């Protein structure tokens, strides 16, 4: 029964994303507050979170606009922050590349770090699932994520609801990602790739436009691939 298994894959995606959604809400609130305080009106703040819908790039764009950077520089710098998603897109292609156009458009629109990471872990664990189920799983992860991101932005912008510093929400993002990385370290190849990425990202932190991230991630992927080729992938 393909319909039933698509539905269960979708629900599994929703379920897998729920804990991480609670960690995304503080960032939505924060973007709402920062955007409103920078002088954006409510429509503009909401447009950022619905049209751009990419946390880090939104913060970068608002930051640069408050510094009166030229429009073209604002757009290019914020886009540079998003370049990692080219890699996400490539890494999802073998799994959902054959899904329907509508599904691929929706997956692209809802591609966050956490929806990607959760789906990628699922595909890693069950690589042989049919395309349909993989696509529905991704859309499941996006289902709680997108409304929470948009609603929390609204609350931040409309009410100015800020998060107390003592909550240390800047620590929420590292914890969130670490909680996704830990379970993904399934073999020596995975561990070596992650370790390479850490060392190189610190070494390349001086690079402008977030290039250090890409410069660290590409060699790290090569390290993982090479170790897998030598039999350390499982």
């Amino acid at each position, binding site marked *: 029964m393909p319909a039933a298994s698509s539905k269960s894959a979708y629900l599994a995606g929703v379920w897998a994303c729920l804990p991480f959604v609670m960690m995304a809400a503080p960032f939505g609130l924060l973007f709402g507050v920062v955007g409103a305080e920078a002088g954006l009106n409510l429509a503009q703040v909401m447009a950022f979170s619905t049209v751009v819908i990419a946390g880090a790039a939104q913060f970068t764009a608002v930051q640069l606009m408050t510094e009166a950077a030229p429009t073209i520089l604002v757009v290019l710098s914020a886009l540079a922050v998003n370049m990692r998603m080219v890699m996400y897109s490539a890494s999802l*292609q073998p799994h*959902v590349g054959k899904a329907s156009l509508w599904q691929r458009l929706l997956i692209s629109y809802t591609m966050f770090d956490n929806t990607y990471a959760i789906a990628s872990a699922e595909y890693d664990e069950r690589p042989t699932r049919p395309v349909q189920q993989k696509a529905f799983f991704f859309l499941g992860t996006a289902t709680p994520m997108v409304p929470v991101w948009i609603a929390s932005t609204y609350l931040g912008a409309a009410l100015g609801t800020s998060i107390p510093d003592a909550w240390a929400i800047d620590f929420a993002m590292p914890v969130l990602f670490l909680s996704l990385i830990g379970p993904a370290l399934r073999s020596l190849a995975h561990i070596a790739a992650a370790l390479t990425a850490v060392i190189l990202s610190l070494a390349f932190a001086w690079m402008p436009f977030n290039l250090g*991230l890409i410069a660290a991630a590409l060699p*790290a992927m090569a390290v993982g691939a090479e170790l897998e080729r030598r039999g350390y992938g499982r």
Partner: protein
Amino acid sequence: MIAASDWQIWLVIIALGIGTFLVRFSFLGLLGQRDLPDWALRHLRYTAVAVLPALIAPLLVWPEANGGEPEPLRLTAAAMTLAVGYLTGNGIWAIVAGFGSFYALGAIFG
């Protein structure tokens, strides 16, 4: 405060929105139906474990909230998160361990 005019702000939103979507759609759109060679698949299997650590390592080692200086509390709590996630294979326990140790150690030594 943002000095840019209304239309400049909208231009940023729309240009960035289109650009970001194209970045996300890139490989899913262009290579949609194609099968990638084995060597490419092998590299792509390590995307998540390469990008996510590279994204957070600088944030952890030089946290802005601590004036860009390394902070033992954050590093310890981060190590707890990673260790519990690795050992249990469960992200939720990892989050509980990370935030639990962060607030507990912060309360004790803060």
